[in-house]
């Protein structure tokens, strides 16, 4: 347990959260046992040097729990004494490691400037030094002193931790509260001790346990080579070496020493991982834990009524769940809408409302841990939730295409734009490279990219976001799809570029007659391009209507609130009416109306039962039972 005693920035919080995991409890428990080796003189059942030539190479027994070696010495006692020298070695190494890495890392990260540059250059050089040679030289010069070797190892290995501490210190320095503390007149030392070091504590512990794992590997390796304290002193590496000489007659002797080395390294390594997991909050949806991939298809698709009129895309009662470390979370509940050729349907809602998941579910491109649990997605008469991988692959690009939110990350960074477009074109229709090339240039002209020839030679990182989105649109159009799914296509772009991209989409839609399913949170975009709107909240559609009717008078309080919160609709010099609260995550959604805790019109009966989507007119539906209240409000 070197980390608990050595780390300067250790704090209760981390210890507790590590001990809350079973991995943490096992590794900490084992390392505590390891520390017991320090008390070897008290604990060892026998003198580690006492030879008993009548009882050599014995297997484990009541009197010798781990057997005896080739000189009849008790293996358990030798392991305990050997462990003591390993602990001492680790402590020496770790101390040197921390003394070098932490001050330099904090100073480089916090002070920056010239000091930082020199320190980093020195770290670069030290990282390239072959450690083993320096260690051997140290052992030569210092007469096989393992202490000298471990201290050297700690210092030479410090550049890794120094970089990481520096990175953390730099991040902290740029944060507002640190700047505020500087303005308030706190001295640099105070800032380092109060703000920087506490934040580095997690990475320091992680790096320390990983280094300790490496250090014990090296310490046992050097003693294995006979470069440590001379025999008959007990060391773990030395015991493996002695076991090697009786390999043919007593292979058992390899097990205790090798096993205890492996377990100690493992415990230190896993401890490091555990601390990293509990300190670094992962931002992935799965909470940083690997989750089992879910089955993609619904087990028993709920029988649904055939759509009355045949739309190009008809989504009915679609439910989607994600497997998370905390169990299965339903993200979409009974989502439904229709989309006809030539129409543009806007899926509108706040973050977390489920609009992007809906778009991905239609394409059959949910993440590995997501699955459709119920409902249907019918595209041009074909049921997509039950379609095979192959059937879906045949549709993608040629019938349904996708453009996504972040054009800069939608293109493969390692390939030239021309090469990517050519590949997509050739995957739709078999044609020669030259024909494909010509088609690519046509497509690039279609999306109004300037100088297509030159553009094709560029890499994605060499073009702007607006250009990248045009390239993505060109890629999506390559297979002349009937339906384009656009997941927040303009969110990441500047306002002027947004308008250009929307105008482009409108023009292409007019020319090709394709349908567009547009995911957005921006009412301006909806007004600009959509013919129909489906407003989503907490995994449900709460209102759907033709676009002009929604802007005229919405029939769900969430829609009204969302519009009022839109910067486009706010009158000049009046504050925007943000909706109080946030969208509840899956799992903490309310029974009854899911919006009622944020709704100004909420009444007692809103909580009574789940609210169905009420069909108000042929084209309008709302999931609110108090629409009459909405009409009378000014």
């Amino acid at each position, binding site marked *: 347990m070197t980390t608990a005693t050595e780390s300067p920035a250790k704090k209760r919080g981390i210890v507790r959260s590590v001990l809350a995991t079973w991995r943490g409890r096992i590794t900490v428990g084992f390392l505590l046992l390891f520390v017991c080796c320090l008390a070897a003189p008290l604990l060892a059942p026998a003198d580690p040097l006492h030879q008993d030539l009548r009882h050599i190479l014995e297997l484990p027994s009541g009197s010798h729990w781990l057997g005896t070696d080739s000189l009849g010495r008790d293996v358990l006692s030798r392991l305990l004494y050997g462990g003591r020298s390993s602990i001492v070695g680790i402590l020496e190494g770790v101390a040197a490691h921390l003394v070098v890495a932490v001050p330099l890392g904090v100073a480089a990260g916090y002070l920056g400037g010239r000091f930082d540059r020199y320190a980093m250059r020195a770290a670069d050089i030290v990282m390239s030094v*072959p450690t*083993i*040679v320096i260690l051997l*030289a140290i052992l*030569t010069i210092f007469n096989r002193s393992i202490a000298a070797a471990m201290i050297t190892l700690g210092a030479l290995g410090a550049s890794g931790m120094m970089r990481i501490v520096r990175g953390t210190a730099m991040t902290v320095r740029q944060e507002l509260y640190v700047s505020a503390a500087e303005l308030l007149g706190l001295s640099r030392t105070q800032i380092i001790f109060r703000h920087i070091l506490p934040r580095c504590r997690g990475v320091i512990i992680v790096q320390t346990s990983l280094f300790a794992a490496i250090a014990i590997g090296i310490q046992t*390796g050097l003693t294995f*080579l006979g*470069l440590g304290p001379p025999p008959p002193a007990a060391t773990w590496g030395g015991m493996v070496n002695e076991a090697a000489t009786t390999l043919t007659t007593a292979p058992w002797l390899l097990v205790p020493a*090798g096993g205890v080395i492996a377990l100690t390294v493992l415990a230190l390594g896993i401890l490091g991982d555990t601390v990293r997991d509990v300190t670094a909050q992962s931002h992935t949806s799965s909470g940083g834990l690997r989750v089992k991939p879910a089955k993609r298809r619904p087990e028993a698709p709920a029988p649904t009524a055939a759509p009355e009129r045949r739309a190009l895309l008809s989504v009915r009662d679609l439910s989607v769940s994600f497997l998370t470390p905390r169990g299965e979370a339903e993200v979409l509940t009974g989502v439904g809408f229709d989309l006809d050729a030539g129409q543009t349907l806007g899926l509108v809602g706040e973050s977390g409302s489920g609009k992007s998941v809906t778009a991905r579910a239609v394409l059959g491109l949910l993440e590995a841990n997501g699955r459709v649990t119920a409902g249907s997605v019918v595209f041009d008469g074909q049921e997509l939730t039950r379609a095979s991988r192959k059937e879906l*692959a045949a549709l993608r690009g040629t019938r349904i295409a996708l453009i996504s939110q972040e054009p800069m990350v939608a293109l493969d960074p390692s390939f030239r734009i021309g090469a990517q477009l050519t590949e997509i074109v050739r995957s739709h229709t078999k044609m020669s490279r030259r024909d494909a090339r010509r088609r690519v240039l046509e497509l690039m002209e279609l999306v109004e990219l300037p100088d297509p020839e030159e553009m094709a030679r560029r890499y994605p990182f060499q073009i702007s976001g607006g250009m990248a989105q045009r390239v993505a649109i060109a890629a999506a159009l390559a297979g002349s799809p009937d339906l384009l799914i656009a997941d927040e296509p303009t969110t990441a772009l500047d306002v002027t570029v947004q308008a250009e991209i929307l105008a482009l989409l409108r023009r292409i839609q007019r020319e090709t007659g394709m349908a567009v399913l547009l995911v957005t949170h921006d009412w301006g975009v909806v007004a600009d391009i959509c013919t129909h709107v489906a407003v989503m909240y907490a995994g449900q559609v709460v209102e759907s209507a033709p676009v002009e009717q929604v802007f005229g008078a919405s029939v769900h309080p969430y829609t009204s609130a969302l519009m009022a919160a839109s910067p486009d609709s706010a009158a000049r010099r009046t504050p925007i009416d943000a909706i109080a609260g946030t969208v509840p995550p899956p799992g903490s959604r309310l029974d009854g109306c899911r919006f009622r805790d944020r709704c100004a019109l909420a009444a007692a009966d809103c909580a009574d039962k789940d609210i169905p989507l009420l069909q108000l007119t042929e084209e309008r539906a709302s999931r609110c039972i108090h629409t009459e209240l909405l009409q009378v409000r000014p």
Partner: protein
Amino acid sequence: MLRLIGHRIAMSIPLLLIVSLIVFALEALVPGDAARTILGENATAQSLAALRDQLGLNDPWTVRYGDWLAGAFHGDLGTSIISGVDVSSSLSTRLGVTLSLLIPSMLLSAVAGIALGFASAVRGGVLGRFIDVVSLLGFALPGFWVALILVAFFAVQLDLLPATGYQELTVSPGGWLKSIILPVLALSLHGITAVAKQTRDSVMEVLEADYVKFLRANGVSERSVRYRHVLRNAAIPVVTSLGLVSVGMLGGAVFIENVFVLPGLGSLATQATLDHDVPVILGVGVFFTLSVIVINLLIDIAYGLLNPKVRVS
């Protein structure tokens, strides 16, 4: 790209200077010297002084360092204190053994590690969990211990392969192959598992990337997505880990050569350490430092080939 390589090569000179300087300075600062090592504890003051004079040990260490540097510049790394053999020539006779160990181990780590890691990321399930467990073992089990277990099983129990010794490739290709199989396996276990784990993590991350969804959504075949786009983009962190693994293997070779009694640079360095033979340690140090420089250079070139940002700018 060229600038980067130039920078690496320029960095190698201070690196070599620093490594040799550290060794020289430490030797000078610490009591005891080669003369005492050679003549033993019972030597008379006169004989010690005479030998010191003969070995040039009476000069200040800076002068001796200068002499050594001048020699090293011409390929003369001095002579062993113990055997009196020219260091450069004993390095060159042993180089082949160490390279026979290092190069196959690096290749095996790269090929097996990437294949296993990729397969487990794409297939997942049992293979993925297997890789996780084995990579933990590869991390935890010391290489010299794994080597002994391999010897116990393949050499002692099954008598398939020799337990120790080395055969020249030029003398007997079959014998050479047999003599390096176990050492290479022992040396690569850690490398294979480390590369496999990195590949697995990296591929899984790239599989979730937006551009992979975009390519799939717009009709690019799964085969091309995996083997063209995912593999290419997942490669950069894998190359980094390959570099670290290769540098680590230089150290591992020292232990493995001792277990299998291979007459390479590692066993030379170990013996020199036991004998206080500083010139030999320095010689091995120069070779290992050059190896690290070459490995880093290859890694940089690989970055350039894989990452258009490095290549173009």
